[in-house]
């Protein structure tokens, strides 16, 4: 018998399978087809409904560790996935490259001496072997990797890169007893805290003006906020600005921020386009990027772009808006005095 199955780990948040997991199922089905194997999905914790929602088209079996806790515990995920591997002997394990995925997937691979490739942007198979494409140096280099001599490979896939499976299917659900809390005593869950409510909502905004590391002066942040307001746009930002304490978390667009779900115009000022940021906005129809670095990755996802300095552009935007009567120019200094 050939080892040809693909096992996908379906992660969940607030009782729902994450979109990234659905994407893992999508590419999982494709590879399983190439290998001529089955597509198995393992769900750690959660109610029956959760396992049922994994019964999507193209999935052969849903393995549900229903005794496992809802809250994420790296030990338990690692244990359940490892047991599933021992039980079903897949050729390939696919997990989302999520914050939880980067936690347990490498552990699974290390525990089994399996092949491992993280944050994979493409997966291929010739029917026997699996090859993955990774991306390095801020997207500048494509790295093709293989797992010679490994009967098993574990990969995590880059979010928002592969097509998801949404349609329902008729897979069987197999309940397993693994992963009860007693096995995971080293990590205690103290709870989840959602992002505090804010007057800015990136997820519902139709147009977003986003600023990033290219902005050199904190005072410009306040000015950008006024510009965004005048334009009727939400002010978004990339992670470094939140890290620097220049803007609250609610403004952050990206994987650990908010996804710009309803956005149709995204203007990125001084944002180079790290994958985590792209995750939150690369789907937007019209992306216009401004950056001083012509090699910035953001330009690969933009509809239009220009090479300019943000520190100069912000005053220019103010002037433009002032000439349109949308903004009142304050003499000399605009914005806060927090410098």
């Amino acid at each position: 018998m050939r080892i040809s199955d693909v096992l996908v780990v379906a992660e969940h948040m607030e009782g729902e399978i994450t979109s990234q997991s659905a994407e893992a199922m999508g590419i999982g089905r494709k590879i399983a087809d190439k290998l001529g194997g089955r597509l198995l999905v393992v769900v750690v914790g959660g109610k029956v409904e959760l396992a049922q929602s994994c019964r999507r088209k193209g999935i052969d079996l849903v393995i549900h560790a229903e005794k496992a806790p809802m809250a994420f515990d790296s030990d338990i995920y690692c244990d359940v996935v490892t047991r599933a591997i021992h039980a079903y002997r897949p050729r390939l394990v696919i997990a989302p490259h999520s914050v939880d995925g980067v936690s347990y997937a490498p552990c699974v691979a290390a525990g089994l001496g399996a092949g491992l490739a993280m944050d994979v942007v493409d997966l291929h198979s010739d029917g026997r072997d699996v090859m993955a494409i990774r991306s390095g140096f801020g997207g500048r280099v494509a790295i093709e990797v293989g797992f010679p001599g490994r009967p098993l490979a574990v990969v995590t896939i880059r979010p928002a890169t592969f097509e998801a499976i949404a349609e329902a299917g008729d897979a069987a659900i197999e309940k397993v007893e693994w992963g009860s809390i007693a096995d995971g005593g080293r990590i205690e869950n103290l709870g989840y805290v959602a992002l505090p409510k804010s007057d800015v909502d990136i997820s519902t905004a139709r147009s977003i003006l986003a600023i990033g590391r290219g902005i050199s002066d904190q005072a410009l942040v306040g000015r950008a906020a006024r510009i965004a307001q005048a334009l009727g746009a939400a002010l978004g930002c990339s992670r470094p600005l939140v890290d620097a304490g220049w803007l609250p978390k609610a403004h952050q667009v990206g994987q650990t921020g908010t996804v710009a779900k309803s956005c149709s115009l995204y203007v990125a000022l001084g944002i180079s386009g790290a994958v985590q940021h792209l995750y939150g906005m690369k789907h937007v129809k019209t992306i216009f990027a401004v950056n001083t670095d012509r090699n910035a990755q953001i330009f690969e996802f933009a509809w239009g772009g220009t090479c300019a300095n943000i520190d100069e552009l912000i005053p220019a935007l103010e002037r433009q808006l002032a000439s349109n009567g949308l903004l009142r120019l304050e003499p000399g200094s605009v914005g806060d005095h927090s410098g």
Partner: protein
Amino acid sequence: MTETRVLFWSFDSLEILIFYGVASSFIALFLLGAMLRARQWWKGAGRGISFSAPRFVPIIAEVLSHRRIMQRDRPAGFAHLAIFFGFLTLFIGTTIIFIDYDILGPVLGRSFWQGKFYLVFSLCMDIGGVLLLAGIVYLAARRALGGKPKLNYAREYLGETRVRERARVWRTEDWIFLGWLTVIVLTGYVQEALRLSMDPAPDAVWSPVGQLLSRVIGNFELQRSTMAVIRVNHWWFHALLCLSFIACIPWFKGRHMFTGIMSLSLRNPAPLKRLHEDGGESGEFALSRAGLSRVGELSLKRLIQLDACTKCGKCHEACPARASALPLSPRDLILDLRDLAHTCVPDVTVGTAIADETIWSCMSCGACQEICPVGIEHPPMIVDLRRSLVEAARIPQGIQKAFENVATTGNSFGFPARNRGHWSRELEFEIKNANEVTVDWLWYVGDYASYDPRNQVVSCTVAKLLKAANVDFGILHQQERTAGNDVRRAGEEVLFQELRKQNLSSLSSARPFRNIVTTDPHTFNTMKNEYGHEGKTGVFHYSSLLVELLESGRLKVMKPLGKRVTLHDPCHLGRLNGEYDAPRRVLAAIGCELIEMPRNRDNSFCCGAGGGRIWSQEKGRDERPSEIRIHEAQKIGKIDYFITCCPKDLTMFEDARKTAGAENDFEVKDLAELVADAVELQNLSMPDWNALAQKMAQTLSRSISQSVGEIIDAKLNSLRVSAEIEEKSVKADEIAPRQKSGTKGENTGAVVSGSATPEADPKLESTASADVNAAINANRVDTGDRHREAGSNMASEWSISPVKPAAIAPYEFPPRRSRKILVAVKRVGMVGDDLRIASDERSIEPEVMDWNINEWDETGIEEALLKAEALGDTEVVAVTVGPAAADEILRKALAKGVDRAVRLWSDQLSDGDPMAVARAIAAAAIVEQPDLIIAGAQSSDLGQSATGSVLSRILNLPLASVAIALCWDGGTTIDVTRELEGGVQHHQRLAIPTVVTVQTGMNTPRYSSLRMINQAKSKPIIVSEVDVGASSLVGHEVRKMSVPLRRRTEISEEPVDQVAARIVSLFLENR
């Protein structure tokens, strides 16, 4: 009867004796005060004072001419001149009487204080008094009427509206000083008048003021006896006023009569343009520690300078930081420092009175020291203060980033060093590489002119001008690093020294050249004055070269421009190096009418970029200096161009022209751009066709070979991949059983333990295999027969071989402290736009890589240090897996405060594979037995995000990944906040020992100054050889690296205003 007067009228010998007694004691008080002051100064001397012999002539000229007091405030200058000469006259007069009466009289029994001499003497004294009085009245009136912001002690730049308590004391002191002098002069006249009233003299006309007053007294018709009583008592009153004034001199404003001159004598002839070395130049520093952070570190010279300040406010008025309401006024800085110094407590830190922001606000423009009448050197003092802040890592973010960039890439932007000469690619000819060929002029381009897009345009223009004028010139490309002028002025002295060393070595290894020309006045200043090759190699600013080319006719003006322009003198060219004429001569030569701004030449007003401020442009409470300057230019009326000859000026004023709303008034241009217009550069042919043809051919062939190569590659690959897979799968079958045989229970990992590990029962060991076996057993129980069956069926293909620690060579380390944190760090590569894949197609050409410490790991180091500092008795050990070159990042970690550093390496190892790296680090962890292991959540180059997780598995430790907060009291558990998708926070509590991976932004990594990095060189880095053994396990094998053909949008280059218009219309359409 000869004309003279009686000195002690009506005094008997006892009274005279009393006077001498009183006078002596007051003078003794003065001497005592002077001595106490001097003693404090002398403490600051300590480590030897070897200031160069004062240049008396210039000092005397300075004092007598009142040049600086006159500057920019002539009325005050004249008033002070009157006071000065009036006081001097009266002082000399008193001295003459002393000599005549107390020395010559008793010794020779004769007196020269009579006759004609006496009459002239009397007249002089009367005039002196009038001068003194007139000066005081003018200055007092000015002070009383207000309106002079420089005399206002309210710190408006801090938003203060009322004068603070301390400054009210200063104000009182000012008035006492003026009042006291006034009363002394007035009582002198009254005394004279009383004398003349009682003993009318025919020669009273020689004492005009006294005579006038005596007539007034005459009107009172007093009794002679009454008048005698008044005369004697008033005499005592006047005498005591004078004597007590003298006694008080060391204690108040009056001391500037002495300290001012002393301070001028000690002045460094080139205080800012040539900064003193760190802890070096004698007389500048009290201690060998970096900079100035405590009162005890003030040197003799500094103490005297502080005591010389008269609060005249000229520096306050000139300072661009103060003008834009940043929290700095040089006057208040000096006065606050003086108050600190007068505490005389050596351990009082400067920080108790002076905020860091104040120290970082200085733009090193030198305007304050240039105008200071008593020769105080504010900027070098500020640089000293900054040096200590750099040492303490209290640095504004922007400046810290610039330091780090300069240290790693040689430029403040952090662009790859290799790209330094890329701006010249826009030219149709090739600039000579001065590393390879001999040139007359070595063009030292500088950071902004090399990397900043607006300035690159200017650099190209300058290159074309030089080419058109047939100048033989070349550049150093990546052998050039930033010259370090601003790095030095921002206080990172050791980095500056390093830059100087590197640049001097680049210059000496370049092919021979005659002179250095630079487009950047900052570079010009430091190369000319601080590189120590003064006299050997000429260093020129390009404005001087342009003058020569234009005036000698090598550049011919075809079209005199006839434009009205104004010129901004760069601080580093003009004020610091006295070059005011070259740019003006250029403007004259190209037919421009120069309209000067009110503040020009030595009074030029800084653009705000100097002293590192360009890297950290926090705004003040008011307009930026550049905006203030643009308004100044607007006020002079219709001009066409605002001319700069400094890349930083161009950057600042291009921006300010827009923000200050002068876009319709004039354009900001570089001097060279106007010259290009005037010589009609666009019509001059200059390409060397050879080079051009070559370049075109090269480009063509490269693109052909690339596209053909890609097609061939694709074809070959599709064939090769399938062949390879066949081969590999055969191998897999061979390897699998062997791997299996080496597994069970056998602990091949890290058999070595540190010789000084007191831990009897190591907590960490490789337990992954046992764990997995347990899992298998459990599996058999849990799942049905079907699985067991499946398992047996696949035994031939399946193998379980958990990843185990590598073996490392033993090493020694100090006894264990209460806690230990192990931080995993990685040296990451960065690529620029010249990225090339190596010929093996599996790696990147190493010479196009720049290296740095991984940002996430820097966060990890900071977190470990913060925890160690909070908990105490905690050792922080940094460990990396990498070749010898990775020592660099360990040194950085050591400089930050990490206790020890370990580097693990084997040539067979890959530093890019998380499995391989984690195996090695696990081995070190087993040796070290840490309580907490911190790793970055990802690396910035390959971004696998797996090392920390694999490590936890190998060591069988709990794991929390992507933490944004750690809370650990040193006990048996640690609370971790993880950040999930959508900003959701997940709180967990883990049992110690544990592994945590950290996200950036959880802290601000501290700066490790180059001095600390150098000092860290003495801390040893433990290097341990890794034995990868038979199972050189990696997570994957890199088959091919390639630069993907990237779909990218067309990137336009257009003026910002057009960009702004496009953006606004996009938003309006999307509404």
